[in-house]
Every structure is written in C-alpha cells, then in structure tokens.
C-alpha cells in the first residue's frame, strides 16, 4: 500500500466514522493517527460524548476486534489480562484470555481502578504481551488501547502516575460538539440510528491493511530540520520555568511517530513542521508536571506547550 492509497483509505474511514460520530472529525483523525503510530490514546472528557461509539465504529470500519473494560475500584488485574482456570474434564489449568486480548480496547474510566490493575493494563500496552503463570502471550496486532478519564470527578479515583501517563502516546481532550453538530446527531437518532447496533456500517479495511499502513508510516521521510525542531521543542519543555518535570525522550519519539502518521494521513511522504506543531499538545500535555506555583496561577500544560512552541522557530520560517 503506497502513501496515496493509505491516505485515501484513512480518509474514507474517518468519513465513515464521522457519519455516526458527528462533530468530532478532529478526534477521529487523532485516534487514527494514534493507531498508525502504534501508540495508545488517553481521552479526557465528560461522559456521553461518544467515546465508546467512536471505538466501536472504528473497530467495525477497520475490521478489528473490539472489547470494552469498565474500570471500577474492585477490578482485578486478572479481570483485564485473563487467568488460568482449572478444567476438571482435562484435569489441567487452561488460560482464559481477558478482554485485553482484542485489537481495539476501550479502557473506560481507567482512573477508577487501583494502581495494581492499572499497571497490568499499562504493561500490556508497553510490551504488547501478557505474562500469566510464567507464560508470555502476545496480544493481537494491531493493538490500540483507548483509555478514558473524566476530568471533573476526582472522588474515589486513582490518578495515573506520571510514569504511567508517559506510556500513552497521545492525550486528547474531547469537548462538546457544536450546536449544529448536535442537531444533526439528534436527526440521526430520529431517523432510527441505534448506537448499539451500528447497522449498515461497512468494513472498509482489514487488519492487514492497518498493519500495512503502520509499516507505511515508517517510510515517511523526516528531514534533519524537522528532527532538530522536535528535539528543540522537547528540550525546551525541560527548561521551561513553569515546568517541574519536562518531557522524556519517549515524548520525542512519540512526536516523531505522530508527525509521520499525520504526514501519511495528509498523503505526504515527508513530514513538515506543521505536522509536529499540530500534535505537540497531544503528545506533551500529559507528560509535563507543572510547578506548584504555576498550577496555583491556573497555568495548564497546554498553556506551557503554547509558550514553548512560540519560543521555537519553525524550520524554513519566513518571519
């Protein structure tokens, strides 16, 4: 699959998903970029914005398997990864795979489960395999975890530690759709749309296609100026006054990967500065730990990323 074909296929997928997830086109594209860049996505937004629908629709159009895990305080690691169950018939322990053994996994309200359960998921995300009873089992490929958390409620939650947040390639913030989009959404429902059935939703690609596109991302060319641009941005985050802990080298790698995926989505075989700038917030916002003073002043990581981007000249700038 060449770049042009991949771009067109992805646009068709985005358009198909956009048919049901109205007004969230940008989010759909960003999640697709996360998938292409072989990363995982953390979605932050209030309930009811169509996160489950997004993942279900993506799974259906991409021809991937889908599982949803509702994280609760009593969720055990084995509920996620699976466990060995004794079979009286065979007189042996058989491994029963958990919901993590799917290609698209929605980890809903990940911060409601205790750290132990969270870490079992995060291990699977990092290694793309699950170890149980001394046996390591590979997860199906492609593998994408989309975790969600609610930014408003904090009672009874276990915030993800910084080290674990770093495992997510992108942290995306979902807002409410516009009034016009919401109206179109209601009209969809009036016309008989049922988010649980997704009938008439066509499968446009297969897992082989997705894997081919992930390989195609690796073929996207990155000029030295772009690499310099990425490293300068990440480096600035470490010395920025309002930031206590800057982004890690994993952030640089992540920014490079999403920039390449963005280029592919745009039908280009090379990265331009705008690809980097477009995704800098998504890659960096959850990796920056702010100084208490800055937090007190109401500074958000996005504000810091904005300031960092303003300080770094774009390669081949005209100004």
């Amino acid at each position, binding site marked *: 699959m060449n770049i042009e074909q991949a771009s067109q296929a992805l646009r068709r997928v985005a358009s198909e998903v956009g048919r049901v997830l109205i007004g969230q086109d940008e989010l759909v594209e960003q999640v697709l970029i996360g998938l292409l860049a072989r990363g995982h996505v953390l979605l932050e937004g209030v309930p009811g914005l169509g996160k489950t629908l997004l993942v279900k629709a993506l799974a259906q159009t991409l021809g991937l398997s889908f599982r949803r895990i509702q994280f609760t305080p009593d969720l055990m690691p084995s509920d996620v990864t699976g466990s060995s169950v004794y079979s009286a018939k065979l007189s042996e322990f058989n491994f029963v795979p958990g919901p993590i053994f799917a290609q698209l996994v929605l980890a809903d309200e990940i911060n409601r489960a205790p750290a132990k359960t969270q870490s079992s998921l995060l291990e699977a995300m990092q290694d793309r395999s699950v170890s149980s009873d001394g046996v390591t089992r590979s997860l199906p490929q492609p593998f994408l975890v989309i975790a969600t958390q609610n930014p408003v409620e904090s009672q009874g939650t276990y915030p993800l530690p910084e080290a674990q947040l770093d495992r997510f390639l992108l942290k995306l913030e979902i807002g409410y759709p516009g009034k016009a989009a919401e109206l179109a959404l209601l009209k969809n429902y009036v016309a008989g749309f049922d988010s649980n059935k997704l009938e008439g939703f066509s499968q446009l690609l297969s897992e082989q296609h997705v894997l081919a596109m992930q390989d195609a991302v690796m073929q996207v060319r990155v000029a030295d100026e772009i690499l310099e641009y990425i490293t300068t941005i990440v480096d600035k985050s470490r010395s920025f006054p309002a930031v206590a802990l800057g982004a890690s080298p994993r952030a640089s790698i992540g920014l490079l990967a999403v920039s390449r995926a963005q280029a592919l989505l745009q039908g280009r075989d090379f990265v331009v500065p705008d690809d980097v700038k477009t995704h800098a917030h998504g890659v960096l916002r959850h990796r920056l730990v702010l100084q208490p003073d800055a937090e*007190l002043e109401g500074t958000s990581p996005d504000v810091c990323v904005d300031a960092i981007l303003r300080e770094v000249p774009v390669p081949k700038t005209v100004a």
Partner: protein
Amino acid sequence: MNEVDQARLDQSLERAFGDGELPYCHDKTYRLKYSEHWLCSLSKADQQRCPAFKEQCGVSVAPEPTHDSAGGSLHVAPWIGAVAEVLFWGLIAALVVAFVVSLIRLRKRRQDLDDEAEERSSLEPAAQPAPAAEQSGDKDVQRLLDKARRAAERGELGAAIDAAHAAAVQGLSAAGQVELDRDRTNGDYLRDLRKAPPLQQQFKGIVAQVEVAQFGGAAPSRSTFDSVLEQVMALLRRLAVLSLLLLPLGLLGCGAQHAGGDPDRGPAGLYVFKHLLADQGAKVHMRLAPLSKLDADLGVIVAYEAELEAPEQKRVLDWVRRGGRLVVVGNSEFADAGEVEMSLHGCGATAERGPSQDLAPLKLAVIGEGSLRLAPKSESRVSHVVDVTCGGRPYIVTSFLEEGSITFMPERELLSNASLSVADNARLVAELVPAGEGTIELVGPWTGDGSESPVQSLKSAGLMPVMLQLFGLTLLLALRQGTSFGARRDVQTRSRRAFADHVRAVASTYARAGAGRLASGHYALLLIDQLRERTCPGQRPTLLQLAAAIARRVRRPENQIVQLLVEAKSAFEEQGDGQGVNHKLVRELEQLSSQAGGIS
C-alpha cells in the same frame, strides 16, 4: 405689538447689512437665482440698505445650479472649464508618473548595491550558510521576487523557491491576511486564510510545492520553481485586486460635496432676522428636533412655512392657550384655530399699520401677492387685531386665544434679508417678534429633520464615507495587530497572594501526594490542643482528665467525649494505613471545639 428703540434697531441693521456678511448686499456682480428674483419688487421701496440689490435686479438671472458664483467672472467660454479640468488631471498624472519612476530608479540603485554586496560575500571563502530563519529577513515582496529570479538564474533552485514562498507570505502579511511570526507554520497561514477561501486555495497550491522542495528530500527542478513563481505572482495579483477594491470607499469620501453658498445669507435668507433678534437680546434657536416637547423657557415660536404633524400642532396650540406667543409666516394649518383665512388677492407693494394702532405710522414694502381675511366663527372666543393692512385688506393679523396669541403673516418673504433691508419692515418685525421673552424657536421645514441616531447624523453630515474608511482601516489594523492595538505585554501577575491561596496550595500538594488522612490527623490534633487550652489552660492533662473537663464545659456525657478523643488520637497515629479521611470525626471535633469556646 411692542415699542421698539429705533436708534438701537438702526445700529443693529447697520451691523447686519454693513459687515460684509451678505455678499448680495454690496457685490454688484452677484447674480440672483430664480428663487431670489421673486424679491425684486422690494428693490423699488424706499430706504434701501443694500445698495447692490437694485442693480442685481436689473440684470439677467443666473441659472439655479448651486455652485458658488460669487467669487469670479463667469464671462468665459464654457469649453475653457473642460480644458482646465483635463490639464489639471494631466498634471496630476504626470506628477504621479514622475514619483513612481523616481521610486523605481531608487529601488534599482539599491538593488545594484545589494547585488554587489552579495557577490562580495559569495567570494569570501569561509562564508557559512545562515540559518533559514535569518536568511529570510527581507520583507519587501518585490525584492524577494527579484532575489528568487536571480537565485534561479544562478541555479540555486532551493533558495529561489524559498524566496518565492517568502514573497507570497510577505504579500499576504502586508495585505493583513496572515499574521507573520517565527513560530508560525504554513499550516497556520492556511488556517488564517480560512476567511478567504480563494486565497487559501491558491496559497495551498504554493505550499504543497514549496514543502516538497524544502522537506521532501528531492532536488527541486526548474519547472517546480517556474510553477511556484507563477502561482505566487497570481496570488500577489489577487491581493492587489483586493486592495483596489478599497478604493471606491476613498472615492466616495472624495465625492462628498457641499451644497453651494450659505442660502441664509442670500436675499431670501433669514440671516438679518436672526441677527436682529439676537442683537435685541433674544436667544434664537433653529428647531431641528421634532416638536415632541416644548421647553419651559420658550418665549415665542416663529412658524416659518412649518409643516407640523397634528399632535405637534395640538401641542403648540395648547401652549398658546396657556399664554404662549406664536408667529405664523406663510400658509399654515394654524389659520383655522386663529380664525383667519389666507387670500390670494393681490394688495399692492406697500402696507401700513392697521386701524386703532397707537404706535407711530410705518411705511412697509411687501410683495403683496397675498393677504388675510378674518373668518370668525359663531360663538367664537377668539378676538382679532389687524396689525398691518395692505390695499385696505388685513395683511398681518393677531388672533388672541385665551391667554396667548397667534400673529399671522401671509408672505414668508416678509422676514427675508431683502425685505428687512427696505422701508420700515425691520421695525415692524421687531415689534411683532419681541425679544427678551425667553427663547425664540424658529420652526420651519427643517424641523423634525434632526438626526435620531448618531449614524443618521453622520450620514446627514456627509461623514459616512469617511467613517467607513476609518472603520475599514481600523479593521485592517486590528486584523494585523490583534486586539491589543499596541505592544504586547505579559499578563500582570499578582505580587502577593491571599492566605486562602496558600492554604489551597498546601491542600493541593497534600491531595496530589494522597496525604489527605495525614492532613486531617494533624488538624484533629490541633483541635485537641485547642480544647486543652480552652478547658485546662496552663496544665498538661491526660486524655481522661481532658475529656472530663470538656464534658463539664459542654455538658455532654463524659464517655462520648473520651471515645471521640481516643478516635482522634488513633487517627493521627494510624495515618499511614491508606484509608480515606474520616470526615465525621473531624466534624465532631470541630463542633466540640466550637461548643467549648470557639475555633481560633
């Protein structure tokens, strides 16, 4: 009618007619307009105060168009004006061409100097290529295009494409379409251009090719450069057209013309009338606003061919009945209320005081094409006094309505500058319209024409095009500079913080560290210390002694207090077990402390 000081009146008239304020009065070359020629019958009267007026009435009439002809001789061939206009614009065009040529020459000279400098620098062996950001500091679009062409001729196609791209971006920036900064990408510029889709599309085409050359890895070809340059030129042409679209606004502004000379100072104007009243000490006010409300200090209303709405007429009549004085000039709807009728019977060119007048006789000059007729109604309570007669007919009549009066004059010309310059007309008017009885409101066709909104006012003043231009320029400035309209400044930070902020900061740090129980344990201990100070000051009681003292103070069972204190103490000691905050315990301790004397 009132007695008038003749000497004072004469002085006033001398000033009005003698100070050069009335061009027609002394300028023999002044040509009367058609509408003014009507007044020429007055030029035959005695006591002419305008020496030139009689002569003006003897020559042919000037055409009505309103251009000011007072200044110069018009005895020239009409084609001269057209030739002069052509010459004028030709001269202007020549000046503009000369200016542009000199600019081009200046630019060329500067360009040659730049080329020389560039050649010199290229010969230097250790010259290092500057970073891209520093190379492209030039903001002049034309020079950037020239640079691009020269670089292409030298075979430096990458640099040529960079320069062409820079020219496009600088052009967009100069047109206020994009905001230029070193951290802005082509994507940012494209997003800026969302509001101008054709420009966005054109720039997108340029960017696509430029980025391939800049980041795509392939060596740029001559055809790529030519294509980029062509698209850049097309974009710049479009921008130029957009700029030209602003010109009509400018032309509108230039096209705003004033009407001819001041009509108030012509023979038919009211300049002398107003001057006369002002000299007598009256406050004269031209009523522009509708007569929706009458001022308290209103003395006399002079309705000069006024066209009032029925409610306005009623309001004025009510005011008259309450003691107001109204002077009606020309035909009017008030005639019915005053029980007079306008008559179109001619009465001659002279008029005199009416019968039963004790005042000195007057010789008046009038147009005499109209007069009045008394039309008393049956059971009428209106009484009449004929102030002036003309050819034996009533010419000026005052009708008395209850407390007030209405004076009717059939001909509006009676108040004109020409009329007041002859015979005893000025004296009569001064007697009829007495000064010193409050403000004199001049109500006429202009009344109600006052603007009801600032926009209408601007429109009436012919300032609308100018304001639109200013608004357009402000908008462009705002688009270019942002909303700040000035140097950007950092957000002002507070130098001191409130105590509550510190508490919140500490609390957020504890919350982030998951140490809510630790904080609540310390708080509980603090509350116990406070209870100890309040119930056993200066002592070191045991927990049981403290509980007994508190129980006595708050009159609660001692065993409850003991249980509470023990729980609080153990909460402090076992704060590391990871459980949540015991809010109930904290609340109970707070309540206890409050009952024991308050929380400090």
